[in-house]
């Protein structure tokens, strides 16, 4: 067994264990930290697959952005040290059963399916190749989806500001009382 295999199994254990803790922990802040470790494990798996650019994007956007955003929103909406309320045991059992059945069915399908690898020569997923193809307007270029996603991000940003903004009426009312 080589070192690469050992690293793979360690990363897999990190991802699955911390993912499971993230959805079962009753302390919401700890759940966010477990989610952080799960995302770091996935970034490590991308490094293991030698897709360094995706791993870097994963760390920057998920670990540096989304988890910090989630932790901030926990601070803004929860009082510290509160446990989440216990869920009904029936709901937990039936959810676990449904998820287990789904997992078993999907894994059965995957193991019965024979994946066929293409014989074409591999290209390097380096930043140069990714950048050239992403902004290319020729065949296989991704310039149009890139623009669409940038418009979507702009719209989402404006939408967030509008949703989270207090209306002038509220500010006046709050100032009065």
């Amino acid at each position, binding site marked *: 067994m080589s070192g690469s295999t050992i690293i*793979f199994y360690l990363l897999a254990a990190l991802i699955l264990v911390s993912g499971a803790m993230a959805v079962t922990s009753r302390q919401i802040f700890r759940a966010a930290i477990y*989610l952080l470790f799960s995302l770091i494990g996935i970034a490590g798996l991308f490094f293991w697959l030698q897709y360094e650019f995706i791993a870097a994007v994963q760390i920057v956007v998920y670990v540096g952005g*989304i988890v910090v955003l989630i932790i901030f929103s926990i601070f803004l909406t929860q009082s510290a040290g509160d446990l989440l309320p216990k869920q009904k045991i029936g709901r937990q059992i039936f959810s676990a059963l449904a*998820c287990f059945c789904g997992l078993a069915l999907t894994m059965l399908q995957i193991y019965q399916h024979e994946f066929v690898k293409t014989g074409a020569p591999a290209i390097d997923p380096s930043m140069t190749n990714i950048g050239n193809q992403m902004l290319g307007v020729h065949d296989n270029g991704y310039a149009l989806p890139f623009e669409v996603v940038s418009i979507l991000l702009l719209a989402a940003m404006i939408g967030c500001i509008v949703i*989270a903004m207090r209306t002038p009426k509220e500010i006046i009312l709050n100032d009065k009382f």
Partner: protein
Amino acid sequence: MTEPGLYHILFISTTLFFIGVYGFFTRRNLVTMLMSIELILNSVNLNFIAFNKYLWPNRLDGVFFTIFVIAIAAAEAATAIAIIINLYRSHHSIDVERAEEMKF
């Protein structure tokens, strides 16, 4: 323990997906439900990258789909948190059962 390949990564991503689904079913707090959604989206990213690496190494489409999924997940998380904070301001709770009046 065998040499890890496509099936191992598909096992990890499927398990992570259903862990996320379990969290989405059982949690009743909006922030933790958002965290489950992040797990689900990440398992999808893992799938795209694994298929790109092991089945179609001559193309980069999986990489682009992953990048777009990450960008959309960031937009989704930001919008969801804006909605959650607005809901907390009006209801003083982010429990989904307390926000029932939004159903009608």
